[in-house]
């Protein structure tokens, strides 16, 4: 019954607005928390009663067959965990009850968009659900209606509109050339006319649109402004999953299941991945704003995922999917930490912070785990996914790109170490004497995310083998 993943949040919205709005708004948080937690558990367990396609009685209504494979499971799990983290952060950082209530509704709509995108096996439906997630993101970024947040949302809208035009035009060409927009029909059409200029042009346009959505350099202009100007809970959601689901997941899904690898496409993805890895890391080095630095770091990490995909091998794609998961977790954790720090220090300027680890021990220590994983330090999860990507690049003969990935890892270590030193280590800065942990929920979600990072690192063979096996199976099909 995968269709419940898009129907239940809608029922949630109706219940919230017609029942909880009248009865008690405070209960909305617990209601949605239980909803996301249930979805996460069902996905984690791969519950056969839920994911068996034949059991889905709603398929005839939607007139589609939902596509659930290993890559979808990873993406669904990321969506649910990050939505959960974002919800908890909203509880502590959005103080106005009305604002928090509206945010909860938008979060549910966004989860419908992302779940729909992951489940669908049709390129037009993928586009529609991508827009559901994008529209709710625009609103959430502009939530506070400050000048910066409106500017961030505006830049996102403008560049998204460009991506939309490219993708819609590409879909029209696919429909024209392949007679349908389902993944199977496009794959069939490409198989019949592998050198069709129309189809190749459509692939180029669609992939370019996804590059904008993913925030790869040079299509990244919107990303730092949108991430840093958004309210903290929205930053967690955007950096943790929205950008990745809308851009990178869609790119992996389409390249692996529909377009297939070709030397030209691989080279474009590799080049953009390498430029993003380096440019993102170098830009992050020069930032004083905590959230802005994490935003540039996201560009760099998305570059790693692109490098894995661009290698064009099962190992590289599995590495990319594993890094997709790891990045969703450690970047959410770092943004949760930045939200906690901003809540107590009332600023995100790292030059005005220092020594916060002594006052906020849980935030400080989980932040160390997040940063070590992001920097690729063993035995944490981030190390393994980067290692797999580098090995895949080396094996595929893309040695220059493997070297770039290694060098950028040193840059990552350097800017994240600088962040730790300026924010958490050293002497407590004047004016921060009253800082303390924001709340039990904040601490719990930070520890939860940190534990996932440690567990995935220690259980690497188990986790990676499962991903690798399913990627190989998809590629054989």
């Amino acid at each position, binding site marked *: 019954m995968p269709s419940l993943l898009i129907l239940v949040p809608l029922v949630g919205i109706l219940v919230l607005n017609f029942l909880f709005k009248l009865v008690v708004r405070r209960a909305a948080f617990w209601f949605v928390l239980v909803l996301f937690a249930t979805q996460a558990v069902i996905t984690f367990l791969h519950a056969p009663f839920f994911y068996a396609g034949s059991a889905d009685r709603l398929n005839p209504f939607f007139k589609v067959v939902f596509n659930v494979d290993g890559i979808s499971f990873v993406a669904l799990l990321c969506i649910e965990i990050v939505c959960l983290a974002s919800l908890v952060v909203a509880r502590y950082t959005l103080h106005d009850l009305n604002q928090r209530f509206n945010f909860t509704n938008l979060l549910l*709509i966004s989860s419908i968009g992302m779940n729909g995108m992951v489940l669908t096996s049709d390129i*037009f439906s993928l586009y*529609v659900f991508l827009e559901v997630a994008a*529209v709710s993101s625009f609103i959430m970024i502009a939530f506070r209606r400050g000048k910066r947040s409106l500017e961030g949302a505006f830049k996102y809208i403008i560049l998204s509109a460009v991506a939309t035009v490219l993708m819609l035009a590409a879909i029209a060409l696919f*429909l024209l050339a392949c007679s349908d*927009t389902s993944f199977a029909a496009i794959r069939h*059409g490409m198989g*019949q006319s592998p050198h*069709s200029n*129309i189809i190749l042009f459509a692939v180029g346009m669609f992939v370019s649109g996804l590059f904008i959505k993913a925030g790869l350099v040079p299509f990244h202009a919107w990303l730092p402004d949108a991430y840093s100007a958004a309210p903290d809970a929205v930053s967690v959601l955007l950096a943790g999953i929205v950008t990745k689901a809308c851009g990178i997941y869609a790119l992996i899904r389409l390249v692996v299941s529909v377009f297939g690898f070709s030397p030209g496409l691989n080279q474009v993805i590799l080049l953009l991945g390498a430029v993003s890895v380096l440019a993102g890391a170098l830009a992050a080095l020069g930032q004083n704003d905590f959230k802005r630095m994490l935003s540039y770091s996201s560009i760099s990490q998305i570059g790693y995922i692109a490098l894995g995909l661009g290698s064009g091998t099962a190992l590289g794609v599995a590495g990319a999917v594993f890094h997709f998961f790891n990045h969703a977790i450690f970047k959410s954790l770092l943004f949760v930490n930045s939200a906690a720090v901003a809540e107590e220090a009332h600023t995100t300027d790292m030059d005005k912070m220092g020594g916060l680890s002594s006052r906020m021990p849980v935030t400080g220590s989980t932040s160390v785990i997040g940063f070590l994983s992001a920097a690729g330090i063993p035995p944490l999860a981030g190390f393994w996914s980067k290692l797999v990507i580098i090995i895949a690049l080396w094996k595929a003969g893309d040695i220059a790109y493997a070297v770039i990935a290694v060098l950028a890892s040193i840059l990552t270590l350097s800017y994240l170490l600088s962040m730790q030193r300026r924010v958490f280590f050293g002497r407590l800065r004047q004016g921060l004497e009253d800082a303390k942990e924001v709340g039990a929920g904040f601490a719990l979600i930070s520890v939860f995310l940190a534990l996932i990072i440690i567990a995935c690192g220690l259980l690497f063979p188990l986790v990676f083998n499962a991903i690798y096996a399913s990627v190989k199976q998809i590629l054989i099909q």
Partner: protein
Amino acid sequence: MTNLNLMLLVLMVAAAVWAVMARSLLKAAIGLAIASIIITIFMFEFNSPLAAVFELSVCSGLITVIFLSTIGLTRPLSHKELLALSRDRGRRYGFMPLLVIACGAILAFVFLKMPLDLEVAKNTISVGAREVLWNFRHLDLFGQIMILLAGGFGAVLLFRETNTDEW
């Protein structure tokens, strides 16, 4: 392509450019409505009456009415402010029409060079595009309802009256 279509296309681009470059919001909204009406004509010509009716009623009609009523609630700029805005806009976006023409020329060149091989489509198209999109796509309609819902929340959140002056 007939001369009439060509004229309409030029008119549509001119109306769209006017919508972006116009000094007055009112004129910009009218420019957008004109561009939308011309798109409607093309949709009728391409045998898509359903899409055309939606375009005409929602984009040219409803949205223009909402724009005009919202503009009616705003304070109009003084002549001096309008001149300054116009100069600034010309300086920042004056190159845009040239960029559009250049992109159009490049695309035209690419398409003229590119053989439009639609063998696959000729062999396999059995259902019309319109029929595919409107009769077999309930999931997409569900998605579109979600977009409208998000838009509704956005309108409530972003356009509600506020006492705080964050600007």
